[in-house]
């Protein structure tokens, strides 16, 4: 019986290896034939056997072959490092993209490009390595180290990616010239113009691969669990950390050449594992081969849609292929996720400030900042002038500035901040996780895609159409997420997983649109980063109407959310209709967020941080924390708007980015503290 089983396994292994290699060869042939100069098979052979300097041969030798080989190397590396991360972190969702390693590497590369340009000679390997290692360390540490749960680690990874990519976008807007070439690289592209990338990355990654194969029997033991492995005499920490180190080095080596390409590292190992392979040696070999197949295949697809004047990032295509896979995976495992008995775990401060005092304090600060928002800008106005203008007198130019520009803008920032924060509070309780926010359930990216759709395809600059499309995009993407998550009875982990996948598809779409069109790149980046720039009284009306209708309902729901917060079992036991309340709250939460996002663009973090701060200040009761988090959110966006407007006048930094930069330190602390929340 055993020997029979073994021979069957052996056959499957052989089939998968040979099949993969053959497929790779076949795809390579197609790949090399793609492009504007036709080449025949003979020509390809010829350029190997008797190299001459014809145009065709130069194209093959200097452009196409390097690109193909780089694709094979990168795909393979993503494949085996994916396996490595998944095994070492005991996390089926781990890969360089979900762990935030890619975003971290991108961030440091951009940073060096701007501030320490002299250090970059050729390939930014060291820079990428610093970012990648740093991020890997932070993610593992913040999500609770060895005891980290897969979902928590993935959330920390994606949240950290969000921090890095928003700071990266700030830098890209501020230093448009210095970072000009980095956008394509930043979304992952295999384009090569010489052999440098290959001669650089191949030796490093090959050594890493060999080490992986050598330590693979140890990883099989590690699979039994840390305690058992130690009991069997394995130096667990040694293998864990060298493994992660190798994975990060190999990833950085390819990322520094081709940019962050997501999802290959997630799909390849999963396909192999699902086929029943469980020895790491086999998984490494096969996921390397199939990783290459996937990446080369994705590159072929990405090149089908170019006309030579631009290059679509292959990273976006791997996301489009890989994200449905992630959804499928979530779907398969989702049924088991449904029975989570935990309530919402949040942290409250030890010494609570009394609620009325807090209310007065926040309102006071908001009024002060609001007045300053009216005061400062291109032309500084005195307090006396402002009062004059608001009461109807005052000179014409100044009153124009106040009434048409500063006032609607400040009010929009305040209201949008409030709406975002309240929606964040509702969503966090529904998703049962204080690390969730609008971006978790696809709203921000969906809205971004919708808005870009309006800008480019409907070539619209109208103030009406862009928000409408953004709104539709937001609602659609979150509907998809909720529809799929229905299977697990809207379990939080499921929502988060599917959210990550849908977000990936949306941002791939955004990248493709931004890159494939040449006009208005910076403008759309600004919109995507979230801006209060062109706020008008229209926005104020929309936001006020929505608040007037929805906030009273949200207020009533908050009472019920106090029960939902205790976890599904307890909530039902004390008489709450959990599922109904969850659906209702989600609908209103999504609606609020979609409205806010369609008026001010994708402002991240407010929906995450404000509710958290509010809970910290006033505890778990939702009606109290709704008020406080609303005020905090409004305050945050108001301050960010003011800073973004005056700091580099006459240019502007999008307020959404200021929020991220201000919020990042608090956020890191938050991640740290949630990892060791007491129950």
């Amino acid at each position: 019986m055993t020997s029979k089983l073994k021979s069957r396994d052996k056959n499957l292994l052989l089939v998968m290896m040979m099949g993969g290699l053959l497929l790779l060869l076949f795809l390579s042939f197609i790949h090399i034939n793609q492009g504007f100069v036709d080449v025949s098979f003979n020509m390809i052979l010829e350029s190997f056997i008797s190299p001459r300097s014809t145009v065709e041969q130069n194209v093959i030798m200097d452009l196409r072959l390097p690109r193909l080989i780089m694709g094979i190397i990168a795909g393979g590396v993503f494949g085996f490092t994916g396996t490595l991360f998944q095994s070492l972190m005991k996390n089926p969702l781990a890969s360089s993209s979900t762990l935030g390693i890619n975003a971290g590497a991108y961030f440091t590369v951009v940073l060096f490009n701007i501030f320490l340009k002299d250090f970059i000679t050729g390939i930014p390997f060291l820079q990428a390595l610093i970012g990648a290692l740093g991020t890997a360390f932070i993610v593992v540490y913040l999500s609770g180290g060895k005891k980290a749960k897969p979902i928590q680690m993935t959330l920390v990874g994606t949240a950290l990616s969000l921090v890095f990519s928003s700071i990266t976008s700030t830098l890209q807007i501020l230093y448009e010239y210095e970072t000009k070439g980095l956008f394509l690289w930043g979304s992952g592209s295999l384009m090569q113009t010489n052999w440098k990338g290959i001669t650089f990355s191949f030796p490093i990654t090959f050594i890493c691969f060999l080490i992986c194969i050598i330590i693979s029997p140890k990883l099989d033991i590690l699979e039994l669990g840390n305690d058992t492995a130690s009991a069997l005499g394995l130096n667990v920490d040694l293998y864990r950390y060298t493994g992660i180190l190798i994975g990060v080095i190999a990833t950085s080596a390819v990322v520094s050449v081709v940019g962050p390409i997501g999802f290959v590292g997630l799909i390849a190992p999963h396909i192999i594992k699902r086929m029943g392979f469980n020895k790491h040696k086999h998984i490494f070999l096969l996921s390397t081969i199939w990783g290459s197949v996937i990446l080369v295949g994705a590159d072929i697809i990405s090149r089908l849609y170019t006309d030579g004047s631009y290059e679509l990032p292959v990273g976006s295509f791997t996301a489009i292929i890989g994200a449905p896979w992630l959804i499928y995976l979530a779907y398969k495992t989702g049924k088991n996720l449904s029975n989570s008995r935990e309530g919402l775990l949040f942290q409250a401060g030890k010494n609570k400030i009394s609620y009325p005092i807090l209310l007065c304090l926040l309102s006071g600060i908001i009024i002060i900042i609001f007045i300053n928002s009216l005061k400062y800008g291109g032309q500084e106005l005195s307090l006396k002038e402002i009062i004059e203008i608001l009461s109807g007198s005052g000179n014409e130019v100044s009153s124009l500035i106040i009434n048409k520009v500063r006032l609607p803008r400040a009010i929009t920032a305040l209201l949008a901040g409030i709406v975002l924060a309240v929606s964040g509070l509702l969503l966090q309780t529904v998703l049962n996780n204080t690390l969730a926010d609008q971006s978790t359930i696809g709203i921000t990216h969906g809205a971004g895609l919708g808005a870009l759709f309006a800008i480019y395809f409907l070539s619209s600059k109208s103030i009406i159409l862009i928000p409408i499309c953004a709104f539709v995009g937001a609602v659609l993407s979150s509907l998809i997420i909720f529809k799929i998550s229905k299977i697990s009875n809207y379990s939080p982990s499921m929502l988060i997983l599917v959210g990550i996948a849908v977000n990936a598809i949306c941002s791939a779409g955004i990248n493709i649109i931004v890159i494939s069109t040449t006009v208005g790149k910076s403008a759309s980046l600004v919109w995507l980063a979230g801006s209060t720039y062109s706020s008008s009284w229209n926005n104020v009306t929309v936001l006020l109407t929505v608040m007037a209708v929805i906030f009273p309902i949200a207020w009533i729901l908050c009472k019920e959310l106090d029960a939902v917060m205790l976890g599904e079992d307890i909530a039902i036991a004390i008489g709450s209709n959990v599922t109904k309340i969850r659906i209702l709250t989600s609908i209103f939460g999504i609606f609020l967020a979609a409205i806010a996002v369609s008026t001010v663009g994708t402002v991240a973090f407010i929906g995450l941080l404000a509710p958290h701060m509010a809970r910290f200040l006033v505890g778990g009761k939702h009606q109290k924390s709704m008020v406080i988090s609303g005020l905090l959110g409004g305050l945050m966006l108001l301050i960010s708007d003011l800073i973004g407007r005056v700091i580099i006048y006459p240019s502007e930094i999008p307020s959404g980015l200021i929020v991220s930069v201000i919020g990042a330190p608090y956020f890191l602390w938050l991640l740290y503290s949630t990892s060791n929340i007491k129950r």
Partner: protein
Amino acid sequence: MIPIKAENLKLGYENAVIIDDVTVEIPENKITILIGANGCGKSTMLRSFARLLKPKCGEIIINGRNISSIPNKQISKELGILPQSPIVSGSLTVRELVEMGRFPYQTWRNKLSDEDQIIVNKALKSTQMLEFADRTLDSLSGGQKQRAWIAMVLAQETDIILLDEPTTYLDVTYQIDILDLLYKLNKEEGKTIVMVLHDLNLSCRYADYIIALKNKKIYKQGSPQEVITSKTVKDIFDLECEIIQDPIYKTPYCIPYSKAI
């Protein structure tokens, strides 16, 4: 009236059947304890009594009405359940938690009335948690935390209380502590208590009625003296044992035989 009655109950998850065609009545004003081997469906049955799990087939009747026809909040006024080791944020204070027990009595706008406050205080008092009322949950010991949860269930003022392994993970001192508390509630306030318990000897001491489960069915039910025999233990746990009389409490006492010594 019979507090809980199940008719032709069939329970399970996905395709697995865990309880099959069981009909049972829980006696009023008594302590009923469910026993059985791991995975025999004790907790599943308890959860279905509290509508935390929908039956695949059959009916559950609470105080004479079908559970599916009673509004959720109404059930919460008649039946309280403490699920197995619930996890909530440790930042909640004991009082905040116990106040949640008044949830079924509140409409969307009103705050806790004076009457609610009195009931909350009473629940805190009878669980001896009054002095810890303003402490946060994460500052409590395991036994205190469990008492806080029981106080929350008490604040619901239900005549029926279900508990899923209320003594798991507790030191033996706390185990006795919790069981004594439940015993007092039963004797002094006439609460009908149904719980799942692992310890056979403690079950015999505290239970008026024992229901033993095996193979998706009820193996035997009745008073501890009727149910706990060496044959029952052999059949449901596959364990050879001697049943003697507890010298102090005069209830059945199980001494398992070892196969090695």
